[in-house]
């Protein structure tokens, strides 16, 4: 074909003039890119340095760390969102997500509230070693456990278990401090009365604000305790709420709470779309998880070979992500609960256990990708990062 036959097309002259003009009028866009990067850095910084400016003891097993920005403004967030905290502990670089418990309109600091977990690498580090003045690495707030004005009811019913109170604390504080036209019924389960985090503040808020109701539920109360006891069951929910209409339910707590409360809500006729559930880390004891193959001991050792990389020892009961981090291999991770897919790796050979219902893309499953934060080796593996 002759080159440039379009020069013979009708209207070419006008187009050629327009092109010539646009060459002269063209504008360089590299500066815009910098602007965009700066702006996005305000919303979703890849790195966020925070300084511990206060440590507040909430209960014997719980502390709030007040974190102020070091060299930037804090990114905005929605009440209920979390930040990942990165730490290097005993030579192991890892991270954990922590819901922000302070309210979003207060922009000077983030509070995160940490409860001691038996053998909890990061929680114990934060509880025992971090002090005022220390620096912590974080990144922009994340997560989808927030009130959505597009379709959530103005009356939120919040079920919290233990340290699962933190996102609700942010929501409740925002509602009362900013005078939002919303209603909250908080049903907060704990094993013992002195485990209840934010107890005085919640009681005081509930007293002062008609739109906030606070029902602590104690699993193992003292004999003299007169409040609600046991688990958050259908009878209790029914008694507190009356009817289930025009309410959206938010659950945040350990897996055991979901396993118990979700069927109770279902028995009360609450539709699935009315229930929001925050993720809460990998299962505490994977061997108890439905579907775990019998006969595989959590201490059983396997080897994982990384494509073009080294071979590392792992054991069946430890999430693959954690085993990788122990060997100095740090895939990006954010939620560490199976949802965000950041720690996705491809299993080239071998089998892993990944709890049923882990939200993995269909085609990722088809091609062998797993979310390493909730994947447990059942054989020797070869993986691609």
């Amino acid at each position, binding site marked *: *074909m*002759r080159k440039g*036959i*379009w020069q*013979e*097309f*009708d*209207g*070419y002259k*006008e*187009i050629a003039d*327009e*092109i010539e003009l*646009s*060459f002269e*009028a*063209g*504008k*360089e*866009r*590299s500066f*815009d*890119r910098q*602007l*965009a990067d700066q*702006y*996005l850095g305000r*919303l*979703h910084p890849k790195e966020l340095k925070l300084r511990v400016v206060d440590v507040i003891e909430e209960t014997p097993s719980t502390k709030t760390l007040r974190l102020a920005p070091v060299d930037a*403004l804090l*990114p*905005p967030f*929605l009440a209920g969102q979390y930040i990942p905290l990165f730490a290097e502990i005993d030579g192991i670089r890892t991270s954990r997500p922590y819901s922000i418990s302070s309210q979003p309109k207060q*922009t000077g600091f983030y509070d995160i509230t940490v409860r001691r977990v038996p053998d909890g690498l990061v929680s114990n580090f934060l509880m025992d070693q971090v002090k005022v003045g220390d620096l912590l690495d974080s990144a922009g707030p994340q997560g*989808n456990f927030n009130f*959505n*004005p*597009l*379709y959530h009811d103005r009356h939120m019913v919040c079920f919290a278990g233990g340290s699962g109170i933190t996102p609700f604390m942010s929501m409740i504080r925002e509602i009362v401090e900013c005078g939002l036209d919303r209603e909250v019924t908080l049903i907060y389960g704990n094993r013992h009365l002195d485990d209840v985090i934010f107890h005085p503040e919640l009681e005081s808020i509930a007293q002062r604000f008609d739109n906030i109701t606070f029902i602590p539920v104690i699993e193992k109360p003292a004999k003299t305790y007169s409040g609600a006891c046991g688990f958050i069951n259908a009878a209790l929910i029914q008694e507190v709420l009356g009817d289930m209409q025009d309410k959206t339910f938010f659950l945040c707590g350990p897996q055991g709470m979901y396993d118990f409360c979700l069927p109770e809500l279902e028995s009360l006729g609450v*539709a*699935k*779309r009315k229930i929001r559930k925050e993720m809460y880390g990998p299962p505490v004891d994977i061997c108890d998880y439905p579907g775990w193959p019998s006969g595989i001991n959590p201490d059983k050792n396997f080897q994982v070979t990384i494509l*073009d990389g080294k071979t590392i020892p792992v054991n069946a009961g430890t999430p693959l992500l954690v085993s990788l981090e122990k060997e100095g291999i740090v*895939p*990006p991770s954010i939620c560490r609960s199976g*949802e965000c*897919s*950041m720690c*996705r790796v491809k299993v080239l050979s071998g089998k892993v256990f990944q709890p049923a219902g882990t*939200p*993995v*893309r*269909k*085609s*990722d499953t*088809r*091609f062998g*990708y797993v979310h390493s934060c909730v994947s447990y080796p059942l054989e020797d593996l070869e993986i*691609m*990062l």
Partner: protein
Amino acid sequence: MDYDVVVIGAGNGGLTASATLARKGQKVLLLERHNIPGGCATSFCRGRFEFEVALHQLSGLGTPEKPGPLRMTLGSLGVMENLEFVEIQDLYSVYMPDGFTTCLKPDKNQTIAELKEKFPHEKEAIDNFFDLVYTYANDMIGAFIFRDPEPSRDKYPNLYRYALRNAKEVLDDYFKDPLLKTVISVYWGYLGVSTDQLSFAYLAMLLFQYIEFKPFHVKGGSQALSNAILNVFLTAGGRARFNCGAKRILVEDNQVIGVETDQGDTIETRYVVANISPMETYTNLVGKDLIPNNTLQEMNSRILSNSAFTMFIGFDCEPDELNIRESTNFLMASTDISRSLHDRMGRVDIQDELMVMSCYDISDPTFSPPGTCQINLVTLKYGDPWLTIPPGQYHEAKFRCAESMLKRTEKIFPNIRKHIEEIDIGTPLTHMRYLGHPAGAVYGFESRTKDSFFFQPGNRSPVDGLTFAGGWVGDQGFEPTLRSGVSAAKSILRQMNS
């Protein structure tokens, strides 16, 4: 040499370039900043839904009996056996606020009949217009696809007459009814420029392609396509590094000699495929001082396309309970297809813009979990105004815009709000963040007539060894970008042999 070729970016073009080169025995490294392949061609999970990010209707695939160009491309890459395509039974529906609605089928005669029924006063014009679309498409195919060595005005009269005209002029020549013009031109939403600036050639080719080769979707969504192509690449021995972008393209005596990654290591190579914008490539990776002035001028002469505001909505019921009957629905606020419609894409708030609502479960009932369905509701918006929103007000702006879109959609599908189970929202800033495109442009440079097919710079660069793939250097959309990677790969193979 560490690698024969380094491909920067695992978008559609980067993926097909990588797979083509690896299958030709080249040692290829694919770098991708994100943790998944696909660029726009991805999905993400929320609750029990896996939301499709970008693909509405795949063009150019054709049926096994009458394969289109894309089926041949994917076939030659060896990915077809890992993919299940689903033919979409409708071309598109248009909904107007006054209750007018029409559903066109991907069949020329049915579409003409439906239009004539709705617009009896324009019967003749409808016949004439589709004659023009088809003769234009045939001229184009004869001259450019089959590469006629001696094209002429006698052989291809409509090509010569119409190739450089804009769509609105042609619509005005043929039709009087503004509603008909609106209905027939809604595909401008897939191209990003309103009809007064859109090349008629693009509108004609899009209509022709979708009718002749049928619109398709793919099981598992566009992520399945991306994963399948990546899989072919890996199987052929290719290496991919995710969470790792390129920081510099190293050039010596105008020849690519390597790539420095943003993890700090340097990879020796003599060939790079850039599946990223030329701005990023020339300005940040190569360095402007190494690029001739006319190349930079050409780049700057073009206008960044719009970005998009997208709502991903999962419902706890089947589409028919929502009254959603077709896969592809254009929701229009008025019959104004003039310049002002285009201008409105330049403000943050959403009122009367064109919106596309795709419901994938109509053609593929397995797309969402049983008893549920999802829609992708999108409108085009320029990205820059979003940079003027104070960051503290970003979430509010996002919800406000989403509320406007939802309200407009509810007027047509009144049941939707009470069935919502999940919503996620992508704003122009989301696109800036995940795609890294300046201004969050989803269509690369704008497809104005002056920037159409004939006037694009093509995949070559002034730097030896540097070749482009993707929507920034050619046409936009899945089919063109998937094919662009194959062209880039072939171009590199030719350079290697010469």
